[in-house]
């Protein structure tokens, strides 16, 4: 029964997200935690490595999305985070947590949490394009 299987998969994903676990396996194409540019993010831990987000946080537009492997990326991250359209260098740790160039010694559970932390750190400054 495909319907039931799909539902069970979504439930499992939501459960994992609620536990703050960054997902590593690509399951289906459903995108959870998606919020519009002015949307309020879900109360759960937020997007993991396979999810997309797009929101305004403290007046900054933050976006995150997976990118196809093979795309040129420093550190080989298969995920892109943008702050007001400028790329924030991010990296995934072996345990599924994330760091960025402005928070390189402090892992965050999800790319969304990492992007928000970057906004706080930037205090309105603009990112310099990745060399």
């Amino acid at each position, binding site marked *: 029964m495909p319907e039931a299987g799909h539902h069970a998969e979504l439930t499992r994903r939501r459960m994992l997200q609620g536990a703050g676990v960054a997902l590593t396996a690509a399951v289906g194409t459903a995108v959870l935690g998606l919020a519009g540019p002015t949307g309020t993010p879900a109360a759960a831990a937020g997007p993991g490595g396979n999810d997309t987000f797009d929101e305004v946080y403290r007046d900054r537009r933050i976006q995150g999305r997976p990118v196809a492997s093979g795309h040129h990326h420093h550190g080989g991250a298969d995920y892109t985070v943008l702050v007001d359209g400028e790329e924030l260098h991010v990296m995934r740790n072996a345990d599924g947590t994330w760091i960025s160039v*402005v928070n390189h010694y402090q892992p965050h559970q999800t790319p969304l949490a990492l992007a928000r932390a970057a906004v706080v750190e930037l205090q309105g400054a603009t990112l310099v394009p990745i060399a």
Partner: protein
Amino acid sequence: MAVRKNQATLTAKEKRDFVDAVLQLKKLGRYDAYVSTHNRFIVSDTDNGERTGHRSPSFLPWHRRFLLQFEQDLQSVNPSVTLPYWDWTADRTATAGLWAEDLLGGNGRSGDNRVTTGPFAGTGGQWTITVRPDSRDYLRRSLGTGVAQLPTRAEVESVLAVQTYDAAPWNSSSAGFRNQLEGWRGVNLHNRVHVWVGGLMGTGMSPNDPVFWLHHCFIDKLWAEWQRRHPQQGYLPTTATTNVIALNTTMKPWNDTTPADMLDHTRHYTYDSAF
């Protein structure tokens, strides 16, 4: 033999000589290369790929070599200068002498975290941040904001007690002394100090803050202390390992130095005391 000293014990002249040599390297345009090199490695060192400067066994010998090069550069300006170290288990508040006007200057001001006191204040015009992640060109700190407490002596002791240098998979998920000292696992020593200082010290361009050298000098001293306490233990891995610097593998960017070359710091300098 050059002696690296606790910053808290430096004379006024030693502090002045160190600060002046750092400012001179900045003025000569040589300082920023260290910032660039560090950032280049930190963004390319990955847990599942090639890793040399961070999140890998060579974190300690790589930084020992990096500090040696910087120290030699300082000594080309003033031969009497050596790197001081910051024992953050002892000098653990924003009012410590380390942050006074005659050494590193103080905390960043509220609002924009700009450092406004000491030789490296953006307002002084001698310390413009050029290699940077964002548009701000001034030194920033936010002491004790990202994390409230620096590691304690007891926490350091617990990490020094770890017998094994490092372990597979030789990255940020490893058990062993190196990763607990680096801070990706366990009580978190080195990483936590970067976060405690905040500002540019929390970024991949952390050598923009001169406290970077004093922090890493203490990390280097703790490696020496671990060696002293565990004479039967040694650097691992000793055999060729994919993406990882083994004992006799040369390290980028120098390509002429192996971890084995870096094990005995007394060939280059000694420390004023044991931990």
